[in-house]
């Protein structure tokens, strides 16, 4: 049998239909490969004959003339068998090529599995209910996972957590040093953009010097932490989810459990600690780079001297802004770590599931970052921070 390849097929199916008495005979001959005949339907004459009353007493298929064959012949014979069964006419197979009859037997040996029909699409109310329940389950899973991480952290503080210190150092490097390049680029550009946007308005009042106030406060209070969080969610969070998902698929997580080691302690805790520790450090760095970005615009485009810019920045910078920025940073770091590790641990055991877990980790992290940002902003306003 040869693989079929695209090409011209013979239009005529090599079969002759004859009627002898009350028996219909099909004589197959010639080349019955896919590339020659495609997947031929039973001849119209046969279908017509089977539809007339009284139906023939038998349908005889003579295969002695078949020279070459492959799956095309088998598919044709299966169709004939089905047609015969539907019409209640027995099919008699004669002189089929070696192997073809046996393969037909194999193909029909196991009856088709009757799978339960697909469920019909739920109504809007049912869908809303299912969605609400899914959200509730998600929230519970997140809380449960948070609890496990807190317990693992407690074990760590008591010196009882089991994980490899080398892993923690590696994750600190992955979450911190390795991210410096992208954090530098993005936050410098954000500072630059903020300066340009602010300058357009401030220039109208001759108040370009306040670019320093705008960029400084924005970067320290909000944008430094927010941009670093988004970068880490897409970079480190996605990597953590993919690593844990792949480990789940390879049964590495099960192997830890059977060894009596808590996967949350061994796998999740070092990742969470790395992100929570590195996030404020990177945020401070992002604040400074963002301010430099603003300075680049103010100095080169609007003629403000470096001394004026940095004096203005220093004068407007209050400790409150920095404290608020750090609270944002630690919160974002914890949320990214929890969301990405949770998605990784929840991942299924195949390649598609690992991909879904990674995507879900990034989406969940960013949603949580934005929600937390909004909540903290309202709280800080209420407590005058």
């Amino acid at each position, binding site marked *: *049998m040869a693989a*079929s390849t695209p090409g011209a097929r013979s239009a005529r199916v090599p079969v002759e239909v004859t009627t002898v008495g009350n028996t219909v005979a099909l004589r197959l001959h010639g080349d019955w490969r896919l590339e020659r005949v495609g*997947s031929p339907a039973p001849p119209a004459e046969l279908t017509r004959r089977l539809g007339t009353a009284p139906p023939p007493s038998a349908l005889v298929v003579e295969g002695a003339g078949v020279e070459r064959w492959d799956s095309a012949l088998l598919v044709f014979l*299966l169709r004939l068998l089905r047609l015969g069964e539907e019409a209640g006419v027995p099919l008699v197979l004669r002189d089929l090529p070696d192997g073809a009859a*046996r*393969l037909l037997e194999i*193909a*029909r040996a196991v*009856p088709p599995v009757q799978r339960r029909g697909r469920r019909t699409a739920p109504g809007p109310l049912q869908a809303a209910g299912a969605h609400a329940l899914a959200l509730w389950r998600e929230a519970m899973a997140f809380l449960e996972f948070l609890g496990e991480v807190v317990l693992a952290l407690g074990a760590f503080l008591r010196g009882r957590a089991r994980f490899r210190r080398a892993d923690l150092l590696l994750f600190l490097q992955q979450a911190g040093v390795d991210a410096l390049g992208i954090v530098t680029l993005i936050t410098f550009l954000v500072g630059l953009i903020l300066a340009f946007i602010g300058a357009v308005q401030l220039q109208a009042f001759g108040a370009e010097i306040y670019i320093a106030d705008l960029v400084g406060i924005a970067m320290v209070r909000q944008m430094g932490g927010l941009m670093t969080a988004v970068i880490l969610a897409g970079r480190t969070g996605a990597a953590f989810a993919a690593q844990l998902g792949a480990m789940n698929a390879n049964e590495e997580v099960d192997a830890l459990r059977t060894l009596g080691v808590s996967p949350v302690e061994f796998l999740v805790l070092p990742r969470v600690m790395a992100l929570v520790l590195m996030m404020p450090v990177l945020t401070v760095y992002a604040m400074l780079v963002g301010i430099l970005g603003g300075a680049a615009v103010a100095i080169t485009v609007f003629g403000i001297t470096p001394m004026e810019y940095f004096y203005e920045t220093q004068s407007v910078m209050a400790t409150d802004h920095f404290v608020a920025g750090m609270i944002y940073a630690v919160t974002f770091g914890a949320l990214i770590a929890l969301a990405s590790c949770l998605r990784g641990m929840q991942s299924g055991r195949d390649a598609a599931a690992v991909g879904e877990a990674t995507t879900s980790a990034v989406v969940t992290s960013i949603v949580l970052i934005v929600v937390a940002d909004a909540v903290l902003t309202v709280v800080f306003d209420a407590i005058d921070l």
Partner: protein
Amino acid sequence: MAYGSRVIQRDLSFTILRGDIFVIMGGSGCGKSTLMRHMIGLKRPAAGRIVFDGVSLWEAEAEERARLLRRAGVTYQSAALWSSMTLAENVALPMELYTDLSPAEIRELVALKLALVGLAGLEDAYPAELSGGMRKRAGIARALALDPEILFFDEPSAGLDPITSRRLDDLIVELRENLGTTVVLVTHELPTVLGIGTNSVFLDAEARTQRAVGDPKRLAETCRDPVVHAFLHREEPAEVSTP
């Protein structure tokens, strides 16, 4: 065969004849699967030639090599079904890519291939819904998609119970006898080696070369190499020298 400067196997020489069930056997880590990866075009040998139907696989142009490899079907150790596709989509993909069959024709052929491996009616199932043995059989159905002349199996019995393994062996024999397909099997399962193999090569991890070539049943009776003898009789090998 080598990974960088590390030689896995050297001086391999054997011929697979049309209609053979050729077994690549040997202990763990001897390079059985690596040899198969060379034969199915996934890895270029460090030296030497693999000749398929008169054409040197790795000296042929990439397009010619791809055309040659389409005449082969491969079943991987983990079945390697695409998890985001149904069984029908898994089996249909090679036909969609390399034939001009209509979707209706492909559907019929997919049903046939799945029926041949005993999975009729499971067209809409996803790989994750199947047992290990069913996944293996679905992998065979996909390997059969283009009516291959040669079928490769990497550890077909791995992870399966003995009964399912024997059923899979029977299926391999049926496919070979009725489709006229040549079969190349990578395995260290003795029941498979001795039960269905008609020709074989024994690779040795220590010597890093082949120790024997031939019908495994005959090797079990006549081969004097202590490592091959021990392997085929489930014995601890005695102290042996490398050839």
